[in-house]
């Protein structure tokens, strides 16, 4: 047991001894950690340390790659995610990517309910309207787009597109939202809007966020992980980690000595 990893009481996600390798290259090594419900958890670390791999394992998107081996377990509310169907799992774990990626052939409206549309779930028009409005309000985009719901999602600005993508992830009513550097392609104003949004969203959702931006982690996260070469080096309250890092590598990273 690594003493620099705090134990979370009643975690929504329990990751136990998780290791992931691409072919022979081990990208995530024996990670054991719990994620607190209704909090923002940031995953930090130098490039290539396995942040994305760990995040993508949580909704099993990492299985898209070939020759991948996964050992250990991940439980969502005490249910083994590797035994769930990926469809059900991914409905419970929304994902937002580095670059905004609305579907270019779909309108704003259709993008929000893309999860239903693409899966072929037929729902009533009224219900659809409600989901679209609620999701867009959740990401503070409703007022900006309510008169142009039939325009293509790709007409929006980068920041608006990214909020649309968050709305798309929210439409299914997930429990967890996974975000992989969601603001790295955005300007500072769009970034701060998304940051405010994430802080607000944690009331209803649990948020796991990969970020390269330490001040972003400091601003919005409650808990922080520091990874190095596939290992989880340190995990705890963000405040504690930034003021008093326990591991030398964490300290060096946070003070900008590498990364």
């Amino acid at each position, binding site marked *: 047991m690594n003493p620099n990893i705090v134990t979370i009481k009643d975690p929504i996600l329990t990751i136990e001894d998780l290791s992931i390798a691409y072919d022979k290259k081990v990208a995530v090594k024996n990670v054991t950690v719990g994620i607190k419900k209704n909090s923002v958890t940031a995953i930090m670390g130098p490039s290539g340390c396995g942040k994305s791999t760990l995040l993508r394992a949580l*909704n099993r*998107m990492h299985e*898209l790659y070939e020759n991948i081996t996964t050992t250990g377990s991940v439980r969502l509310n005490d249910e083994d995610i590797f035994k769930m169907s*990926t*469809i*059900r*799992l*991914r*409905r419970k774990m*929304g*994902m937002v*990517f*580095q*670059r905004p*990626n*609305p*579907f*270019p*052939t779909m309108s704003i409206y259709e993008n929000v309910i*893309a*999860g239903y*549309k*693409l*899966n*072929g779930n037929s729902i009533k028009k009224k219900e659809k309207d409600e989901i679209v409005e609620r999701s867009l309000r959740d990401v503070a985009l409703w007022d900006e787009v309510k008169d142009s719901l039939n325009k293509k999602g790709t007409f929006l600005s980068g920041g608006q597109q990214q909020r649309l*993508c968050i709305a*798309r*992830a929210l439409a*299914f009513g997930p429990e967890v939202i996974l975000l992989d550097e969601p603001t790295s392609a955005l300007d500072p104003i769009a970034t701060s809007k998304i940051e405010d949004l994430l802080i607000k969203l944690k009331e209803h959702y649990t948020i796991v966020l990969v970020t390269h931006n330490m001040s972003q982690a400091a601003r919005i996260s409650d808990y922080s992980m520091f990874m190095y070469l596939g290992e989880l080096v340190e995990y705890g309250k963000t405040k504690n980690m930034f003021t008093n890092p326990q591991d030398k590598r964490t300290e060096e990273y946070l003070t900008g000595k590498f990364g």
Partner: protein
Amino acid sequence: MNALNETDNTRSRILKDKIVLGIVIFFSLLTISPIVLIIGKLIAKGYKQLSFGFIVENTPSTFEAMTAISNHETIPGGIANGLVGTLLMVAMAAAIAIPVGIIAGIYLYETPGKFLPNLIRNVSDILQGVPSIVLGLISYMWVVKHVTNGFSALAGSVSLAIMMLPMIVRSTEETFKMIPQSLKEAALALGVPYYKVILKVMIPTGFSGLLTGILLAIGRVMGETAPLMLTALGSSVINLNIAKPTSAVPLLIWEFYNDPNMVDLIWSSSLLLMIIVLSLNVISKQIAAGRK
């Protein structure tokens, strides 16, 4: 280096630029001159014959043509049998090649670097270089001899379909490669099963690219003559039975060329074929440009 030298340098550079530019323009014009000459010739010699009747009437007999020529009249009739045959055979070829080609293209895109897909890609590239008359021969051996027991539109379509296949396979693969990976991931992250991601995200997103490839392939095979000689043979009347010999515009051009009484008709027929093929090209270019 002093100031004077620099201006001299600049001047000679500008001069060189101009000379090079002139050469480039000259050779560019040289490249397009054949097509301009061809179109000019076709219009000059063929426009008289072009009329509504030319499109809706069957080819005249050589006797009718001879009578008209000796009376100094325009040759009666048209090439409706060829137009209908071309449309029929190209449509059937497309119906075969589009689904097969798109599925194969998706397969190549999805499994890069594997043995079987690489093999298919190479075979498809080789197929693109196979002389079209050989494809006609293949269809002759398969379809004419064993399926329709005689020359037929179906046999013609099969040879054209084999020609279209590699083009559609390639354009599908290239189109899909240009779609950002992140779009596919976005759909998968919504729990959408793989085949639905292909059908509902990849194909609609790449639609114009796929369409461009298909139209170019259709334009290519529309003017094919050699494989049709060995398969569709020809017919002096409109034929809609796919198991029977059928005419096509390029086949008619070849027949007109070989008949001294009909030789005047090659210009108008070629002009019409050229207009159709060029329009397809222009349309596909427009679609491709609209995509950017």
